C-alpha cells in the first residue's frame, strides 16, 4: 500500500515495489524539476569496477527500449528543457528541468532512461574513449588533482580514497555484462527516490509514476561491504610540485561527525563563522589583510567518515604564516566568539536558504540528497529549526572535539619552476 505524508505542501509516497516518490507543490514558478536518485556511487565499487557508477551514468544516455540513441536529447531539447546527470561517491542522479506543461513526457523520459536502457555492446565501446577523455581533462586541471590527492592522503582504507571517474585500466575493461550486473542490482525501485518540485498536483504525479516506475519489480539491493576509515592518530602532510601552477594551493582537513547528526548543525554554524562569505573571520583576517588570495571552508556532508576542510591559495613563500594564522584563529575562537556572532551566523544560514530554494532544481536536489544519502527527509524538513537550536557552547564543543583536539591532514601544491 502506498502511504502519504503531507507537510508544507509536500507529499511523500512509498510505492508497492519499494520506490519512494516525493512531490513538492510550488505555485511561485513555471519551472518543474524532475529528478531520479539511486543510492549508488563510486564507494560501492570493488577495484575492477572503479569508475563503473559514473560510466553507467554515461551509458544510460545511449539509447533505451522506447527511444533510440540520440532521441532523448532531441525530445528534451525540443521541450526547451535541460537534462543532465551526476555521479558522486554516494549517489547517482538524473534530472530534467522543464516548463510545467511538459512534466509528464519528461518523467516518461526519465523512466525510460533509468529503467529501460539498452546498454548495447557497441555503445559501451563508443563511450570508453569519451570517458577516458573526461578523465584526462580532470588530470589536466591541477586543482582537480589536488583534491584527488587530498582524499588519498586522508583515506587509507575507506573507498572514499578512489576517484569517482575510476582509472583508465579499469574503464577500458568494462563490458556489457559487467555493466548489466551492476545496473540490475542498483537501478531498481528499492534503491530509488523520485523527486518532483513545481506547480504540479501530487496525486496526478503519483498516478503517473505508478504507471511507469511503479511497474518495475523491486528486490533487495546487495550492498558492498563498506570499509570504515580507522581513526587518524597522526598529522599528515604531503607536498606536490606542479609545473603548470602559478600560486600555492593548500587544503587542511579534519575527520568530523556524519551529516545530519545532532552536533552537525553546530559544525555548519562554525563553518559559517569561519569561512562563509565576506563577513567571515577568514575573509576578514586572511583575504582583506593580504595573506591569501582566496579562502573557503566547508564539510563534505558525508554519512560516514565525513571531513571538514579549509582551503586557500596564496604566494608559496607564505605557507607557514598562513597555516599559523589559521591555527591561531581556531585556537582563539573560544575566547573571542560572542553570542551575537553565533546568532548572526545562524540567521545568515537560514536566510540564505530562501535564496538557494528559488530554483526548483535546488530544492529537488536537497530532498533527493536527504532521502538518498542522509536517509532521512528530516534533514530537509527540519533544517531551519535544527540550525536555530544551535548555541554558542555547541559551536565551541564541536571546535574542540573535532578540530582542536584532533590530528589533521594537509596537502600543499606549489609551482615547480
Amino acid at each position, binding site marked *: 500500500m502506498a502511504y502519504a505524508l503531507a507537510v508544507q505542501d509536500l507529499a511523500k509516497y512509498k510505492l508497492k515495489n519499494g520506490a519512494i516518490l516525493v512531490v513538492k507543490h510550488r505555485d511561485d514558478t513555471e519551472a518543474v524539476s524532475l529528478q531520479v536518485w539511486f543510492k549508488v556511487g563510486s564507494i560501492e565499487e570493488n577495484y575492477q569496477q572503479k569508475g563503473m557508477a559514473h560510466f553507467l551514468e554515461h551509458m544510460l544516455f545511449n539509447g533505451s527500449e522506447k527511444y533510440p540513441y540520440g532521441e532523448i536529447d532531441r525530445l528534451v531539447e525540443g521541450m*526547451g528543457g535541460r537534462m543532465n546527470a551526476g555521479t558522486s561517491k554516494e549517489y547517482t542522479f538524473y534530472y530534467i528541468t522543464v516548463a510545467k506543461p511538459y512534466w509528464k513526457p519528461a518523467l516518461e523520459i526519465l523512466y525510460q532512461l533509468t529503467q529501460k536502457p539498452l546498454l548495447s555492446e557497441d555503445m559501451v565501446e563508443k563511450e570508453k574513449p569519451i570517458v577516458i577523455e573526461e578523465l584526462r581533462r580532470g588530470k*589536466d586541471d591541477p586543482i582537480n588533482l589536488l583534491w584527488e590527492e587530498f582524499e588519498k592522503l586522508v583515506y587509507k582504507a575507506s573507498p572514499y580514497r578512489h576517484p569517482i571517474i575510476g582509472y583508465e585500466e579499469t574503464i577500458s575493461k568494462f563490458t556489457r555484462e559487467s555493466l548489466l550486473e551492476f545496473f540490475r542490482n542498483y537501478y531498481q525501485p528499492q534503491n530509488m527516490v523520485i523527486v518532483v518540485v513545481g506547480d504540479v498536483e501530487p496525486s496526478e504525479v503519483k498516478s503517473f509514476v505508478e504507471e511507469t516506475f511503479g511497474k518495475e519489480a523491486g528486490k533487495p539491493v546487495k550492498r558492498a561491504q563498506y570499509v570504515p576509515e580507522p581513526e587518524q592518530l597522526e598529522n599528515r602532510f604531503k607536498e606536490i610540485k606542479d609545473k603548470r601552477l602559478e600560486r600555492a594551493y593548500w587544503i587542511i582537513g579534519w575527520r568530523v561527525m556524519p551529516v545530519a547528526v545532532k552536533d552537525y548543525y553546530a559544525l555548519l554554524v562554525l563553518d559559517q563563522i569561519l569561512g562563509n562569505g565576506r563577513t567571515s573571520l577568514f575573509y576578514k583576517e586572511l583575504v582583506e589583510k593580504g595573506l591569501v588570495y582566496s579562502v573557503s571552508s566547508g564539510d563534505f556532508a558525508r554519512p560516514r567518515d565525513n571531513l571538514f576542510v579549509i582551503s586557500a591559495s596564496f604566494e608559496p613563500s607564505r605557507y607557514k604564516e598562513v597555516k599559523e594564522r589559521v591555527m591561531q584563529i581556531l585556537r582563539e575562537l573560544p575566547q573571542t566568539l560572542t553570542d551575537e556572532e553565533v546568532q548572526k551566523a545562524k540567521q545568515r544560514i537560514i536566510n540564505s536558504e530562501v535564496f538557494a530554494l528559488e530554483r526548483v532544481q535546488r530544492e529537488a536536489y536537497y530532498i533527493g540528497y536527504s532521502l538518498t544519502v542522509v536517509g532521512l527527509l528530516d534533514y530537509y524538513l527540519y533544517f531551519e529549526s535544527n540550525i536555530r537550536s544551535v548555541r554558542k557552547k555547541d559551536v565551541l564543543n564541536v571546535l574542540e572535539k573535532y578540530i582542536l583536539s584532533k590530528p589533521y591532514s594537509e596537502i600543499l601544491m606549489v609551482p615547480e619552476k
Partner: protein
Amino acid sequence: MSVFLLIIFFLFSLSYGGAKLKEVNLENGVKLIIKETKGRGIVAGSIFIKSGTHGEEKRGTSNLMARLLTKGTKTFSSYDIASAFEDWGGSIEASTADDYIYINFSTRPEGLEQGLRVIESILLEPTFPEEQLQVEKRRVIASIRSRREDGFELAMERLRLITYRGTSYEVAPEGREEDVEKVEREDLIKRWQQVLKGKNVVVAVVGDMPLEELEKRFRAVFSKLPSGEFNLRAEDKPIKESLVERVQREGAQATILCAFEGVPLNSPDFFALRVLNSILGDGMTSKLFSELREKRGYAYATYSMFPIKLYSPRVFAYIGTSPDKKESALKDLLWVVQEAEITNEDLELAKKKIIGGYLLDRQTRGRQAFQLGFWEVMGFGYKMDQEYVKHIENVRLEDVLKVRESLKKAHQCVVVEP
C-alpha cells in the same frame, strides 16, 4: 504558431502581465526598470554602468575600481557593506565586463532599507582605500597568473590578443600583470568620476514588494547621481585572414579554441546567428557534440559561444582533446562550424533549446534583474527580454545559412598543446 510557442508565450505573460513591470527615466538620465514579483521575500537588482574597459588610460583600472567599490566608503567599512546583505542571506558584488561595470545585490525586503543606504554610499562616497588597493592588486595579479593554469583560459588569453588586436577587448578586464602594477588610487577616483554619469546607468530591480514602494526607494537614491554621459568609441576589428597559433603548456590534454567573425548587435542577422550558434555548439544535440564527441570520440567537452559584445562580434568554438588527436580535431571542428549540413530539424530544435533555456534561466530574481538591465545597457532596450523569444522563433533556415557565410570567411585558432 506552434503549441510549444503558445505555451512559452503564456508562461512569459504570467511573469510580465499587467502593471508589474515599469520603466522610470530619471532627470539625470538614469533608467530604472522595476518588476514586482510574488514569492518568499527576495529583492534582487543589478546596477549597470555602460563603460567596461572602454577608454581606460591604464588597463585594469576599471576592474580594480569595481572590486574596491565594496571595500569601503566614507560611512561604511568593507565588513559593514558585506554584512548589510549577507545578514539577510543575500550578497553584493561589483565587477567589470568588457562593456560595462556592474553591481549585483540581493537581500530580503526587511533588509532593503539598510541595503540602499549602503548602495548610495558606494556610489556617491567610495574611498578606494589604499591598503585594500594593494591587497586587490596582488589578488588580481595572482588571478591573471592562475588563469594560465587552465588550458581553456590560456587559449582565450592568447586568442583575445589575436582576434581583438588593437581594441579594448584584446586583454581581459583584469588587464596584464604589468598594467595592474601601475594603477594607483588616483586612477580609480578619476575613472569613477569619468564613468558614473546618469546616461550610462541602468538599474534593474526585481522583488517581492509593491512596485510603487520599489520605485520610491530606488528613485530617492539614484536621483542623486551626476547627470551627463560617458561616450564609448566604436572600435570594430574584422577578421581579415586565417591563422593558427600554437602554444606549449604541460598537461594531459590539448585545447583548441577558434574565433570566427560574427555579426553586429544591430544587424538584421543577429538573431539568426544566435540560432546558428545554438545549432553548432549548445548541448547534446549540437553539431559539435554529435560530430566530434559522439561520432569521433575526440573529446568529453566541445561547444561554441556567441558572447554579446558592443563591437567586434565573434563566435568561438572549443574542444579539449588528446594531444594525438589534435590535428584531426582541429580540421573537423572547422568543418563542423563552416560546412556540416544544417537541416530544418536542426533549426527547430535549436530554437526550442534557446527559448526553453531562456525561460529556465529566469527562475531567480537576480537573473531576471540582470537580464532586464543587460538588454537595456547593450542597446536592445529592456523590452527585448520579452521580445527575444519572438525574434528567435522568426528565424528561418535561409537566414541561418546566410549568416553562416560570415563564419566561413576566415578563422583564428589557438592550439594549446603539451
